[in-house]
């Protein structure tokens, strides 16, 4: 078990919580940065939050790694501010999000077995 944990954590060493959050917030939609911020806090019921600095630094990294792709804004979009880039999760992004979720599930199961999450299991 010890070796398994190690390999899984090595695989995801680069996956920071912010990146995982963004991948989940994006889902299968196309969103601009501010929408991602809102979406994350809406979808998590306000428990999770990402702030502009981390958001854009992470997005830049994710575009570089191919986890998301950058799109032009849709026709006729009026932002009332600067022109906004849109982002979509790539296939790779989906795979990474899934791998991380698996890893977390394994940990969660452990927690449930120890009765740390009353109401589940």
């Amino acid at each position, binding site marked *: 078990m010890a070796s398994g944990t190690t390999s899984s954590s090595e695989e995801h060493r680069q996956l920071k919580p912010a990146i995982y959050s963004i991948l989940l917030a994006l889902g299968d939609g196309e969103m601009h940065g501010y929408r991602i911020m809102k979406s994350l806090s809406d979808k998590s019921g306000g428990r999770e939050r990402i*702030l*502009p*600095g981390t958001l854009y630094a992470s997005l830049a990294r994710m575009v570089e790694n191919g986890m998301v792709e950058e799109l032009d804004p849709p026709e006729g979009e009026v932002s009332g*501010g*600067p022109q906004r*880039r849109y982002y979509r999760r790539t296939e790779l992004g989906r795979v990474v999000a899934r791998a991380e979720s698996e890893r977390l599930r394994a940990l969660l199961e452990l927690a449930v077995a120890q009765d740390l999450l009353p109401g589940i299991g």
Partner: protein
Amino acid sequence: VPGQLADRFFALLLKSFPCQQRTRYGPEMLDAFKRERMALVRDQGLWSALRFVVAAYRDVVVAGWSERRSEAGRPERTRLEGLFFGIWKDVKEATRSLARAWAFALVCLASLAIGLGINLAIVTLLWISLSPPPGVEVDGALDVVVTTRGLNLDEPWSFPDFEDVKRADTGMEVTGWVVGLRSLRTEDGADDERVSAMYVSANYFQTLGMGIAPGRAFVPEEDDVVGEPPVVVSFDMWENRLGADPQVVGRSLILNRTVHRVIGVTPRGFSGHAAGQDVDAWIPLWEHPRLNPGSDFRYDRSASWLQVLGRLEEGVESVQVNGALGAVMGGLAEAHPETNEIRGAQAIQYTKQGRGDEDWWIIKKIFLAMEVMALLIVSLNVAGMVLVRSATRERELALRMALGSSRLRLVRYLMTESALLAIIGGLLSLTVGWGSLRLLAWRIGQPFPGGLTLTLAAQSLAWSLVMMILIGLSPALKFSRPEILRALKDDGGVGGRRSSRIHRIATSLQAGVALPLLVITGMVLQSSQLLDEGDYGFQPHGLIVSTLDLAGEGYADEEVAPFMRRLRESVAALPGVESVSVADAVPLDYGRRDHRVSRAGEFEAARIPIQGTRATEGYFETIGTPILSGRGFQSGDVAGSEAVAVITESLAERLWPNQGALGQRASFSFDRRNYTDLTVVGIIGDVVGSSHESASANIFVSQWQNPTQRTNLVVRASSEDAALLSAVRGAILELDDDLTQPQVVTSQTLMDGQKGGIHDLSLFFGGISALMLFLAAIGVYGVVDFAVTNRTREIGVRMAVGASRSRVLILVLMDGVKLAIPGIAGGSLLAVVISQIILASMYDYFGRTAVVWTVLGLSVGAALGVVLLASSIPARRATGVHPIEALKGD
């Protein structure tokens, strides 16, 4: 506006990102920040928005730095970044822990803000009053004064003496000056206004080392009479009365019916080279009425009226100058023994305060003493609170240590708390300092004095930091010592008593430090009360005075008496006027008239100090002082007839005890040189001199026999209403409508002017001592409250064995009093010493010694009262202790 500021700051923080990313994502990041901020304000309120803003700031910096790091290929945090994050964490923790201990934080902040704020206000006031006027080059500038028998008696120069010194090679440049009032009429012929003019030698501005811009200073040729005299105006006059005219240089001004040409404007804020001068215009010395062609003053060495400033020439020392000056004056003494025999001169370092700098020295000392006390109280107060707090949180610290905090980490954590308090307290103190200066300026009715300077504000912040760090350091080191923490685990958390001895001493001192201030306040109040109640030997109500400077208005000596006589007649005819007289002073006008008198034929040592007034017929009736024997002045007491004097009862008793003074001969002089013998023709009731505390031994001589140019019309009227005052003013202008708007005031107004000063002074001291007492009260409260907490068990036991509530109350109250007594005793001693020093040096203000003991008693009472009041809050709490709960506590 705050929102915009928040956005701007965010934009600034975006700079932590590498340039490329900033350009690419910056606008969007700012946009997202802005939208979220606004959404939060709208949906969840200001507090959530504020928390978001702070978090987003931190986030953008962290993310930006991390981007830069990975760009540079450095995965680790740099030491600087590590420090930043460490400090950030400390600050966050410290903020939370201070918010929990809000009472403690509040007391510390209040102490810092009030104490340092007062300190800042005092230092600023001192700084303003000590710094030379703008533009003056202080190095090498000299006050050149006349001495009599080697003593500096505040005497001015005669014109010929000044000219001789100016011509001689003394190694300094000298310039003459004298202040007078002029009337101003601008070209467009508006009403006359009074301006304060200074008559100066052409080299006045050079001697001060000042530049004049726009325009120029006087040039040497302007020391001689020229057709259209030049005038330099003050910045203030240029701005307020000449409409800030950019073309002012070359413009014409009419001063006392003479057209003057404006040649320059002084630097902003310059209104004369000495404190208290409020000069609007500088005009050539030769314009002074005393220097009219053919005037005697130009050649008269007995008439002293000119003041002199000097500047050392390059490479000359003031010792050399004084040597040369001595030689010149020695030569003059030989050549003109009748006037110059005992006269010398001295060049001393220029001070803005100029003459009377000894009074100033005392005021400076009082201010410095107050400053030290304020600092002392604050530091004692805060030190006490910090000690108490450290003691009460020993368990928390022990827990932290047990969880693996290093000692350094713990010290840093504690110090951050101190620093945080210091910074907030320091900033608050700036507000308090600024506010109290505003308040003072408003109260005195003067414009706000220059404001806080950056240096002084920084100094206040630095004080705050140094103080808090020193204070915080000792408990931080002490309580982070491992062996103490081990010991702590063994005893039940009462180890805090270790700190209480230092703390008790500190608090005790606080109660005492406020005492000297209370005593000073009491003395000031007492003297102001004496003013109201005193009987000064004359009737101030219904007394109206108009001071006329006829010399300044261009009157020749021989024209003064006829003018004043005519004026007296026309004012006497006004309805409501009971009597009119002419004199050079009235009681309590705070003029300067200290002279000496002796019995005729006695030598100099026997002369006693008195005040001398020039008066004329009807004067004593007019001021309301009874003539006890003999007569007052009569219209026949003029030049050429027998020289007469009227003296007060107590002077008669001093000069001729039990002999009857009428008909005796007294020797008196206005200039301390030319003594003349006078026959005493009348004795009047004792009447006060120029100030409330001046002795009532006074002499009066005939103004017609001792002419003077500055004189008063003194009127006794049935009322003091404005119509009468303006009727008197009208009567003066009817005789000469070119006179500068004459001031006509009631004698009460003159007295009130002085009393107002005393009231302001008492308000000032009173306010400060009240604040200090307040701080002391906070300190006492802290200690007693702490003691009650520590003694909860003991109190519980006492109550369990039957002590009544009132007994517990008294027990705790006595604790507070016992605490304060050593401090109050020490403070009383200090107060006595300080009040004696003040009494000795400021006799004019605090005339009566006896009151000090009463005032001291009251002050001690007040201090004890405050201590009791402060102890009563924890005492009430102690009576609420439930025995069972208290015993269960551990």
